[in-house]
């Protein structure tokens, strides 16, 4: 029981003793003898749940039911049923959605890893500003719309708190997709990458922002775009070559959307970096450089069969080196990679 001020003292009084709730008979859980893993609920929680089951059973729509759902959620934010009930109440009571979003924000600061609150936010935001209404205005106007601005702020804070919060980044994808906020997203991604070049959630978001909802199987990256991404990646590899994220990102991006540029453009840039005195040691020691070479050579050999023999030989040597020296823990994978070279 949290008694913070005189207004909330009333909430600490058991529901059974509140005049407002006299008409309701709580529905108890059947905790027959010999239940497995029975939870020793506090009296408060047990009572809240008993009343919740009772009002849900009759489909009550009321302010008192709404207040009850808030209390239950504060005790157990993972209670997905009560979130569904609350959503319905907010709709039917025509509650102030902005206030509801404020309340959800409070909850999320206490429970950042909860699934349900993000899902709840989605439904509130689309009600507050229907995506179809957002289509008639420019992205700049959309971003400054109070509804979206608040969401972006909220997301910024959540990601600030935990830079890799899976739910936050996932919700961000929903928001950006639904309201077409692609340009600002690329800026946000860049900020996050510069904050921590090893933040893989940010690099994944970069791919997402560049694809901008296009069907991946239908996207061919224009040469200019591919080149600028390669430059971007190389600049960030320079900061710390032994970092999976930029390497996975650029090989993945090019493999899918501009495969020939793996060897026409990426290859010379990374070879140049590996030859540069300032980076040579780091590049030689990181498995990611060698792994990228394998990906590149494989594509090159597939596109230019006349070079295949030479490239396969070089690739075999790389696999051996990775398996025996540079990346021993993954030796079984590198041995597999080596055997599959002959079958490409």
């Amino acid at each position, binding site marked *: 029981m949290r008694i913070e001020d005189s207004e909330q003292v009333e909430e600490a009084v058991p529901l059974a003793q509140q005049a407002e709730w006299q008409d309701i008979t709580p*529905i108890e*859980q*059947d905790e*027959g003898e*010999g*239940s*497995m*893993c*029975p*939870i*020793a*609920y*506090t009296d408060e*929680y047990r009572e809240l*749940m008993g009343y919740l089951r009772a009002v849900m*059973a009759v489909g009550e729509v009321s302010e008192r039911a709404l207040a009850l759902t808030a209390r239950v959620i504060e*005790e*157990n934010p*993972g*209670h*997905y*049923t009560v979130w*569904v009930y609350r959503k319905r109440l907010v709709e039917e009571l025509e509650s102030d959605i902005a206030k509801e979003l404020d309340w959800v924000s409070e909850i999320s600061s206490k429970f950042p890893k909860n699934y349900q609150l993000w899902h709840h936010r989605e*439904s509130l935001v689309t009600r507050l500003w229907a995506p179809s209404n957002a289509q008639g205005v420019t992205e700049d106007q959309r971003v400054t719309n109070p509804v979206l601005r608040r969401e972006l702020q909220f997301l910024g804070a959540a990601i600030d708190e935990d*830079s890799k919060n*899976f739910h936050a*980044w*996932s919700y961000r*994808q929903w928001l950006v997709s639904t309201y077409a906020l692609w340009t600002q997203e690329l800026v946000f991604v860049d900020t996050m990458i510069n*904050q*921590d*070049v*090893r*933040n*893989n*959630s940010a690099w*994944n978001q970069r*791919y997402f922002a560049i694809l901008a909802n296009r069907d991946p199987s239908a996207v061919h990256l224009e040469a200019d775009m591919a080149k600028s991404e390669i430059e971007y990646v190389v600049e960030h590899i320079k900061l*710390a*070559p*032994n*970092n*999976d*994220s930029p390497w*996975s*990102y650029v090989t*993945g*991006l090019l493999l*899918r959307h501009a495969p020939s540029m793996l060897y026409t453009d990426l290859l010379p840039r990374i070879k140049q970096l590996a030859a540069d005195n300032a980076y040579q040691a*780091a590049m030689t020691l*990181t498995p990611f450089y060698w*792994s990228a070479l394998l990906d590149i050579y494989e594509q090159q050999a597939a596109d230019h069969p006349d070079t295949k023999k030479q490239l396969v030989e070089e690739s075999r040597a790389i696999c051996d080196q990775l398996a025996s020296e540079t*990346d*021993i*823990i*993954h*030796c*079984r*994978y590198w041995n*597999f990679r080596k055997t599959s070279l002959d079958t490409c």
Partner: protein
Amino acid sequence: MSYLFSYDYRYDDNAYDTETSNKQVDVEDSIGQIYVKYVEPGTAQYGGIFDNTMLRLHRTKHEQFVRDAMHGLSSGFAVLDASQPWLSFWSLNSLDIMGRTIDSTTRTQALQTVRRFQDQRGGFCGGQGQLPHLAGTYASVMALVLVGGDDAFASINRERMYEWLMTMKREDGAFAVHEDGEVDVRGVYCVLVVASLLNIMTAELVSGVAEFVARCQTCEGGLGPYPGVEAHGGYTLCGLAALEIIGSTHVLDLKRLARWMSARQMAFEGGFSGRTNKLVDGCYSYWVGGAFSILQRALSRTPQDDMLYERRALQRYVLACCQDMRIGGLRDKPGKSADLYHTMYGLLGLSLAQHYVGVDPQTRITDTTSVYSVPARMMQWDVVTSAADVVGVSSNVVKPVHPVYGVSLVPLAKCIKYFYALPPLAPSL
């Protein structure tokens, strides 16, 4: 095996630290302090000889931890009030994997408890008076598989279950996890596991599933919960296992997947992380370890071919770092407390690393159109004893498990036998 421990395998941050690298270094420090105790003094710096005989699975402690939980949980567990089926499943499965008896009292207790979660309209809920949920359904059904027996199986209403599953089906082929709930590949996994076990697979149910899962593969190679979202170990297992059930693992770029999966094994710790540039966690021993077993089959590899990860290093991580000697049970990593979830998944991962459970590529069934091909293909998974590799004292060995279903093979077989003796809802998929 000395090369598997060395300070040389520590993370190289290229003298440029960020939050990610600092966290990684901290974890390696704490794990290094543990590992060094197993290494011959004076040899650690350049490749120490790890004394595996010191690695012991403390079954009795873990059994006590689980039985205490089965007996009752403190009020703080109210936060899992909507995950009650999981509590039973995590407990029962942990005991079963460790080869502990589920006696008739426990059996009755479990059956009575889980029965109460079934919804009249179909499916199982996170608790009484809650909405049915795909995860709660999955956990309930798996708990009943472990309970076993015709009474347990007969308690599941197959027809209602199928109707409810279809109400969760969405246009893109995926499923919402509950009415008005989120849609992701977890839901797909739960549906396919349950439907394949209860013999309620139909073409309608599985339509679009393979396409949806394929779209969840990211440019890194792993799978996320939903198209576009970051590749993650848990969702990768869910997607891959779902595809394996319907015989469609080929829709994925398996080579790119293999690359990402391999990178999940941490060079110094030996355990798996769930995402790129994130920390090791004992639960991924199953999510990623199980995915490796399925990948082995998808690539048509044989028991003579190695698994594509270092099985011994993974076992070392679980045994040396994930056992909570204070309260029993297994945990994420040193410094974290044990819990039922990490206990079960740690044990599952240990099992999959100790045993080789696979499908002989020579004799594998490839038909995917008959409803009966599903159990036939699932039951082809078998233990290849010659490929076992148990680290530490021989008594560390636990029961082999099926990588797709995450339970041991005998209860699974009995469940399949029961349900496939009943008429299917449709003859073909």
